[in-house]
């Protein structure tokens, strides 16, 4: 043990023995998620006449990944007369990021798994961005290693120390080991299975997966029920499965379908020349890195603080009224007349603003999320494996944290930013959304400290600032029946001159889904425009 380790140990010792008894206010605030402006719409406080009218060819409603992908595709096909309308102050949707003096950091989505051959739109994008630098003799993509998650990728705090990897591996009984082995074998079997229609059972994008009814049956029951039926009931395995469901879908294993649960483990078949199959692409600011590059194709064409009030079809074209909410309240209203609209907003908003849009029988469920960025003077040391990119606490309520400086190449990083994720689940989402708005900044800080207390009892002493972002409708949740049911089919039907693009149409909130939907919707709009 060198001196530094010694100092680390003696710094941890008091906290371990005393617990943290600091009771001081942590600087920071609750930011982001322009729900106040959005609620103007919900509460019907937006009736005023437009003061100006403008014309454009295509309007893209929503500047998240789907909207930006649509913008990129329009630009690539030579259509430049378009505008992207975005409610938030920056585009990117849940791929936004922030920055302080130490590092950039994510506010939501923070990685993309290596795209398989079915994901050719995304592969093409990655080639364009230089993330895929070339191909080896076998035709496998060679990734930019600076964007591949640096090793060690994941660690789990269990039995009082960090282990490498997220699957619990230490201290398993032989029966538990058997269950893990069987589960893994089942997942790799599914990963290689093809349906009667010749398509892979599970792939990304979701709608390139097989529609074989014998596979889609898995969508009728919850992941928990399927695990029970398989006899895989041991706690460590169920924890890992539940964690994975919360991580990707924002709902527990008893809230999402078995099809979705298996999709998490069996849909990824990357073929990288220079990375393991479970390596991901990540950046300090998370997927905001990708969103910013996509936004470049819409440079000067993104209008922020734009609250879309209504979309109506007229003989002259589509008429879209938009309120400027720069000051946080209702402001000036502007009317756009365009030839086509790409609606890249979540469906629950589209439903409110597009006239004549039939209500869905079973509207999608959206999971609320809380994302917090903690500026630290250092990541306090704790026993076991050294810090990884993704750091998860076994049995904890949250999804753990991601270290923003992990991709940093400098030899001795000290100050850092960690991004703490929690998907609120276990109760009806509407009630959780109401509850989350009642919580104060101090209450969120306490919630984070207690979620990370096991590995970092002294975290509060290292925190310089905590900002919290509340995502009321963080991501669509693949509840049983949603992937295989008719709701998605209805959602996916374009209604020219209105074209739809959002990951909620896929049922899972992934960059690949949003990007592919956006690209496809733009293509459909281009065909419509002729």
């Amino acid at each position: 043990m060198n001196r530094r380790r010694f100092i680390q140990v003696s710094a941890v010792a008091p906290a371990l023995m005393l617990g943290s008894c600091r009771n001081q206010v942590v600087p920071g605030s609750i930011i982001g998620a322009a729900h106040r402006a959005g609620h103007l719409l919900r509460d019907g406080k937006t009736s005023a006449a437009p003061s100006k009218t403008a014309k454009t060819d295509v309007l893209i409603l929503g500047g998240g990944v789907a909207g930006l992908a649509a913008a990129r595709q329009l630009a690539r096909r030579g259509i430049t007369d378009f505008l992207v309308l975005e409610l938030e102050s920056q585009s990117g949707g849940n791929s936004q990021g922030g920055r302080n003096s130490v590092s950039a950091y994510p506010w939501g989505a923070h990685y993309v798994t290596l795209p398989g051959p079915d994901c050719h739109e995304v592969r093409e994008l990655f080639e364009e961005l230089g993330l895929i630098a070339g191909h080896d003799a076998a035709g496998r993509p060679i990734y930019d290693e600076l964007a591949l998650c640096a090793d060690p990728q994941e660690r789990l705090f269990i039995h009082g120390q960090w282990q490498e990897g997220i699957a619990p591996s230490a201290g398993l009984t032989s029966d538990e080991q058997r269950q893990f082995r069987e589960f893994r074998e089942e997942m790799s079997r599914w990963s290689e299975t093809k349906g009667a229609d010749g398509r892979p059972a599970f792939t990304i994008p979701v709608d390139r997966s097989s529609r074989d009814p014998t596979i889609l049956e898995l969508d009728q029951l919850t992941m928990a029920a399927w695990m029970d039926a398989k006899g895989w009931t041991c706690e460590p395995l169920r924890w890992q499965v539940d964690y994975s469901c919360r991580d990707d879908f924002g709902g527990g294993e008893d809230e999402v379908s078995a099809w979705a649960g298996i999709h998490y483990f069996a849909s990824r078949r990357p073929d990288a020349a220079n990375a393991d199959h479970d390596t991901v692409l990540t950046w300090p600011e998370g997927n905001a890195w990708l969103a910013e590059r996509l936004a470049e194709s819409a440079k000067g064409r993104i209008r922020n603080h734009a609250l879309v009030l209504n979309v109506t079809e007229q003989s002259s074209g589509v008429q879209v009224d938009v309120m400027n909410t720069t000051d946080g309240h209702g402001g000036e209203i502007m009317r756009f007349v365009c030839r086509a609209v790409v609606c890249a907003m979540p469906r629950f908003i589209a439903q409110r603003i597009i006239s004549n849009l039939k209500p869905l029988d079973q509207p999608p469920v959206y999971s609320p999320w809380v994302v917090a960025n903690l500026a630290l003077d250092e990541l306090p040391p704790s026993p076991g494996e050294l810090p990884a990119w993704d750091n998860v606490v076994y049995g904890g309520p949250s999804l753990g944290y991601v270290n923003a400086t992990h991709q940093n190449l400098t030899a001795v990083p000290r100050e850092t930013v960690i991004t703490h994720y929690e998907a609120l689940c276990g109760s009806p989402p509407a009630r959780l959304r109401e509850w989350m708005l009642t919580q104060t900044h101090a209450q969120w800080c306490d919630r984070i400290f207690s979620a990370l207390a096991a590995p970092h009892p002294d975290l509060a002493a290292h925190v310089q600032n905590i900002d919290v972002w509340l995502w009321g409708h963080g991501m669509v949740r693949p509840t049983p029946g949603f992937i295989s049911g008719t709701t998605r089919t209805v959602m996916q039907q374009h209604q020219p001159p209105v074209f739809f693009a959002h990951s909620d149409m896929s049922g899972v909130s992934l960059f690949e889904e949003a990007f592919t939907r956006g690209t496809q919707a733009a293509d459909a709009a281009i065909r419509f425009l002729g």
Partner: protein
Amino acid sequence: MSEEAPPQPAHSSFARPWLLLLSVFAIATCGLVYELIAGTLASYLLGDSVTQFSTIIGVYLFAMGVGSWLSRFIRGDLIAFFIRVEFLIALIGGCSAAVLFLLFGWAASFRIPLYGIVFLIGVQVGTEIPLLLRILEGRFAFKDLVSNVFSFDYVGALLASLLFPLVLVPHLGLVRSAFLFGLINAAVGILALVMLKDEIQRPRGLWITGGVVTAVLLAGILQGDAITRWGEYAAFSDPVIFAKSTPYQRIVITKNRDDLRLFLNSNLQFSSRDEYRYHEALVHPGLSSLPDARRVLILGGGDGLAAREVLRYPRIKSITLVDLDPAMTRLFSSQEMLRAQNNGSLTSPKLHIENADAFTWLAAKREPFDFVIIDFPDPSNFSLGKLYTTSFYQRLAQSMSPAAALVVQSTSPYVARKSFWCVDATLRSCGFQTRPYHALVPSFGEWGYILASKEAITTQLALPDGLRFVNAEVVDQMFRFPPDMARVDTDINRLNNQALVRYFDDEWAEYLH
């Protein structure tokens, strides 16, 4: 506490048991403090705090059990025996930290004295409570006695656990904390001697023992600082002439007669007796076969020794030396003894120092260099491992001229064979042709280097004068590998697998075991 206790009338039947219970409290506190001190010290000196604390606590509790069991054989004058035990604990426990610190520097196996001392203290502490119970028997009702003794025992443990991290370690340090608690143990013994003098047959011997122990401990407290210095320095075999902690590392320089040694984070970087072998082997096989090389880049090497070898070539126009730690380059530019070692290379007008992280410094494309010397510390952690990855070499290649070569110090191909060949495989995967070689540096052992270039190098050596190790025949030998160091297949070291750090950890752990 003894100073504050008012004199009690001899006939007070209350005062003595009450004070003895206070003693329970004191000895429980002391007992736990010794255990914490041993655990912390072992973590400090041996690393792996979980293992150290776990084994120390285990040995300590086991020894307490042994002590409790042994207490049944104690007969006769229980009080005198108790007082002797107190003085013994005071002496062993009180001096434990100081003794362990001093032993670490030269004990062949530090674990023997460590566990020995922990065991001794544990046995003594284990006898205390049974002895006290027996002494107090009859002065309390049995249920009160057990309840009181154990309550005070556990409360004392709590006090110790709070005092240790909050007061003792930060304010007194380990060595003086141990002496202080030794004094408390001694005070308990002396207090018992005073309060129970009527029940002790021959108190004089005990008084003398107590006096001597107290004096030793008092001296220890007063000299605690000196002992810590001495002990820490004893971790190095030679006298320490310089020690400094920078934000990046701890720099220690030792000197023994003509042998000057540099340690970074306790790892030997060079010994002046044979560093010429290491640095001549690092620089000359490559640079002497590049007659057109004018601009040299040195990454790491803040000691200026590689630069000294480069400056033997008059044709070299410029040297850029990139070292993370300004304290290193400042020290080796200014300190007279160190300047003598590197011939003042760091203040040569041809040399330009950049205190920067090499990986980020190379993000900007730099002037194309003709020869690059990579002299980083061994890849013993993930931060250092990044400096041996494909991404690093690809980035470096951007700043090299077409005919340039680079050389990497690549740890020992004998001790860490996979690590060595992993560096070679990594360079080759980046499109370099490699020429691995090795040399014997007695203070390091068999050491490895890899010469790499985009175009094949013909080693037409034009060696400078004045070399003590390298000549044409020796270089010829260097490129030949005996079977026990011959090439093995390895993974390529990438940022996303850190294969090299994993090989290095395994191989050196096995070797040192």
